[in-house]
Every structure is written in structure tokens, then in C-alpha cells.
């Protein structure tokens, strides 16, 4: 009996690490070729990590990840310039039918208002937020901050983050023409972190100590609140292909839905979505 148990245990020990190390990236065994991705910038941390692990496992695969914004991602994949186009919003019915896009939503993400960490303001309601972004409130002192001009940072029109923020946080309110334009989530974080009087908005997955995420109508921008649906400014993160994904594209997208893929998504601050 003891012998059987021990041998079973040994067998199991052989099996466990194998399961752990091999399962997910294993699907790329024997593959080769290159894969190009571009578009939404909120996706980048997750995709980079996934690409790193895949390329480490199989040196014959080259994966390049570019930015540009959701609009660029959709347009480029639709024209066949890249393999996978990322978007931080659902492609419009027009875009889907025009390019024959196939959508893969693999995470849910929130969009939060961010300010410099030294800013005294912690919470804004929708009305105040709209007034700030439209340029009607010009000074931080009016809403409990220090006496300084508010510098508004926004994203360019291609941005899915902008579209979601505009629709769900500003209720399609005006964004002041004086706002400064930033072209990615990463750049937005750096710009806001460097400017004491800034206000901007980024994907919750990009939130860290260098900036402060503000509560909106008293609800803090935490993953829990996004998950429960209490924090309203949320969206799906999509990877889109022209027609059904196949070959390496298919495997890359499948990888994001594996346990390992989902753990990457969660570790980068997003809510993973099952297929």
C-alpha cells in the first residue's frame, strides 16, 4: 500500500510541474512566423507580457505590438495592414460590416479621471467633471484644490478611452478646445504625473502611484466596483481580426483566454473575460 502511494506521489510530482509549465504556451509548439498587432493603447501591458512569454517559449515567432489608438487599430486591421487590431471600444456596426471584422473581447476595463498625486481633490461628481472638461471651471481652488489653473489633458479622436470617457463620464459633454492632446494611455499617465495642475483620464489598468485616480460620484475606480457594475465608466477591451481568426492569430487570441492568459490580464489590472 505504502509503495503504491509513494509511486503515485512520484507520478503526480512528475505530472504537476509539467501541467504548470506547459499548458498554455504549449499551443505555440512548432509554430513560426510573425504577428503584428496595433491600435488600442490600454491593451499594451497585457499583450506585451503575453508576447514576451510566447516568444520566450518559441523563438521562431515574432510578435510586434504598436499603438495608435482604437480607431487606428480597427482601420489598419480592416485594410489588412496588421493581423490583429485592438480597440478599447466595441467597433461600430458600420466598421464591423465594412471590414468584416470578427471581435474578441477578452477583458473589461474602467476609465478613471486622474490627477497629480499631490492634488487635494479626491472625488468629483458628474456635473463638476463636465464643467471642468468643458472649461467652465478653470481653477482648482473652486473645487477645493490649491489656487492654480486647471490643465486639461485629453486623447485624440482615434482613442477608444476618449470615446468611453466622453460617453459615460461626461455624458457626451463638451471637451474644451484648450485641452492638450495626448496619444496613448501611457503618455497620458506620464503627462499627468509630471504636471501638478493636471487632470486627465486613463484606463484603470494603467493606474499606479504616479497619478491619483479620482472617485466619480463617490465611487472609487477600483476593479471591484467595475466588476460589480457600480463604477459606470467601463468598457470591453477587444482584439479584432478581419474575418475569423486563423493560424497564429487564432492561437494568440486563444492564449489570452487560457488560465495563464487570464492571470496575465488580472495581474495587469483588468477583469478577464471568458470566451
Amino acid at each position, binding site marked *: 500500500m505504502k509503495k503504491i502511494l509513494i509511486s503515485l506521489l512520484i507520478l503526480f510530482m512528475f505530472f504537476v510541474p509539467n501541467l504548470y509549465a506547459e499548458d498554455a504556451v504549449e499551443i505555440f509548439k512548432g509554430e513560426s512566423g510573425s504577428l503584428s498587432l496595433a491600435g488600442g493603447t490600454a491593451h499594451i501591458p497585457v499583450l506585451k507580457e503575453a508576447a514576451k512569454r510566447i516568444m520566450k517559449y518559441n523563438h521562431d515567432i515574432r510578435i510586434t505590438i504598436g499603438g*495608435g*489608438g482604437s*480607431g*487606428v487599430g480597427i*482601420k489598419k486591421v480592416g485594410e489588412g495592414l496588421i493581423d490583429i487590431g485592438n480597440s478599447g471600444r466595441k467597433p461600430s456596426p458600420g*466598421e464591423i460590416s465594412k471590414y468584416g471584422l470578427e471581435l474578441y473581447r477578452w477583458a473589461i476595463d474602467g476609465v478613471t479621471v486622474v490627477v497629480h498625486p499631490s492634488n487635494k481633490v479626491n472625488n468629483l461628481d458628474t456635473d463638476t467633471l463636465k464643467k471642468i472638461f468643458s472649461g467652465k471651471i478653470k481653477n482648482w481652488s473652486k473645487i477645493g484644490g490649491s489656487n*492654480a*489653473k486647471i*490643465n486639461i*489633458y485629453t486623447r*485624440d*479622436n*482615434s482613442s477608444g478611452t476618449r470615446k468611453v470617457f466622453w460617453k459615460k463620464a461626461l455624458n457626451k459633454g*463638451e471637451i*474644451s*478646445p*484648450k*485641452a*492638450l*492632446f495626448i*496619444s496613448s494611455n501611457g503618455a497620458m499617465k506620464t*503627462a499627468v504625473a*509630471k*504636471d*501638478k*495642475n*493636471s487632470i486627465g483620464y486613463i484606463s484603470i489598468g494603467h493606474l499606479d502611484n504616479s497619478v491619483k485616480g479620482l472617485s466619480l460620484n463617490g465611487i472609487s475606480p477600483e476593479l471591484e466596483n467595475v466588476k460589480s457594475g457600480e463604477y459606470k465608466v467601463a468598457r470591453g477591451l477587444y482584439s479584432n481580426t478581419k474575418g475569423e481568426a486563423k493560424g497564429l492569430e487564432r492561437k494568440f487570441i486563444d492564449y489570452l483566454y487560457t488560465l495563464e492568459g487570464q492571470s496575465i490580464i488580472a495581474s495587469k489590472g483588468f477583469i478577464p473575460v471568458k470566451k
Partner: protein
Amino acid sequence: MQKKIVPGYILSENREQILNIYNLFLKFIIFSGAILSSVLIFLILLIMIFLALPFFSHEGISIFSGSWNPVSGSYGIAPMIAGTVLTAVPALIIAFPLSLGYSVFAAETGNRYLKKPAILLIRAASSIPTVVYAFAGIFIIVPLIRKIGHGGSGYSILSASLVLAVLISPTMIFFFYDSLKSVNKYTQQGALALGASKSEKVLFLLIPSAKRGIFAGVFLGLGRALGDTMISLMLAGNSASFPDSAFESARTLTAHIALVMAADYDSPEFRSVFACGIILYLITAFLSITARYIYKGRIQ
């Protein structure tokens, strides 16, 4: 039949024919190259006009007066035209005296061990991609301007102008340097013989004689400043409104094109970009043609 004698060779009839065909062929290649590139330049303009036509017929010339607000259907590019001029002209004003001083140093007054390195340095500087300048600007100029500008973001006209000035200096210095160098040596000796000091020689002989090269350099430098994209895109902040001060953000035509390029191909925003393209094309074409004319001496 008598054989023709070509210097160095005695050619048979046959060989001469081959040579003739070869020459014709070569001429044809060169000619078609020249035609192709000049036709392409005109085609680009025509295509831009063609693609901008639907926009103009829809929106009229409101593009030159209104503000930029695509959500409410207003596609004015006047703020961008202002932004372009307000970054490029100050850049020229900053760069001109610096470039003139530098080229006088490198061509004339400088230490003889430093003259050569000075001009080599500029040659190297002129091949740096503009995105590198812009990148350096983000880390050096923007924080500085933020500090001076009291609560501004630092992404401003001033930041972009300062870096643009650095960008266009090599272009100007080359033109200035070449024309300072090409002033007649005997006239220079004459000036010295008449008792002119070195600085008098520079002021009253070299610079007036190099006038044409200086004007040409200025025009080309301005053209470069107007046409550059990366620096204003990365440093000027890109807000689509008329700036009130040098510490405020602005958007240039080039940056505007780069930003709107991501829009849907069928949207009016995207079509309005062609209008920007036409304006930029005409301005820079005018500047560089004028520069060439001045340089060749057709305009005195």
C-alpha cells in the same frame, strides 16, 4: 567608308551604332526619371485638390473661419494656421542670429582649430531625426517652461519654437556658410589692404555679399519649421484653439494632419485634412521656390 575617329578610340561602324543606341537609351532613362518625379509632384497636388473637393463643396470655405469641433460639425482650421505661423516664425527669429553668428565663426572669425569641427558638428546635427529633438525637448525644455510659465503644462508654443529653432539652424548655417565662403578672395584682401579690421570685413563686405545665400537660407529654414511635424506634435500640446500667450498650447497644421489621420476615411474630418495638406503644400512650395530663385540671383 572612312572610319570616324573618336578621341581615344577607333570605332567600327557597328560599334558606333551600339554606342549611339546606348546613349539614346541613357538619355531616355534620365529624361523619364526627371519627368516622372516632376509629374509626381504635380499629381500629389492634383490628388489632394481632387480629394478635398467634396469637402469644399459641402462645407464651403468655412474651414478658414470656424473653430475645430468635429462633434458639432465644425471643421475650421484657422486655429491650426495660426498655430503653424506662431511656432515657425518665432523659431526663425530665434534661429537667425544664432545661425548667422555660427556661420561667421565657422567661415571667418573662429579659431583655426575649431572652424572645421564646428562645421562638421553642424553636418552631423542636420542628420538627426526630428523625433530625437522632440524627445530631448520633452525632458529638457518642457519642464523648464512649466516652471517659468506658472502653472502651465509646459507643452506650449514656446517649447516647440525653441526646439524648432535648433532644428532649422543647420539648414540655415549651411546656406550662410557656403555663401560667406564664396565671397571673392581678392576683394577680401582688398578690404584688408584698405585697413578694414576683421569685424569690419565681416560686417561690410562678407555679409552684404552673402546676402542672397542668407535670404535663401532664411526661406528654406522657415519652410522646414512650417513643415516639421514631430516637434510640434510632441511639444506644442495640440490643443485646437487660438493661443493667448506663448506659454499656451497650440496645434500646427502638420500635427493636425497626423492627429486626424486616425479618423474614419469617410468622415468629413478626414477629408478636411486634405485642405490642410493643400495649404501646407502651397506655403512650402512657395518658400522653397523663392529660396532657389533668390539663391540663383533672379530676384535681387
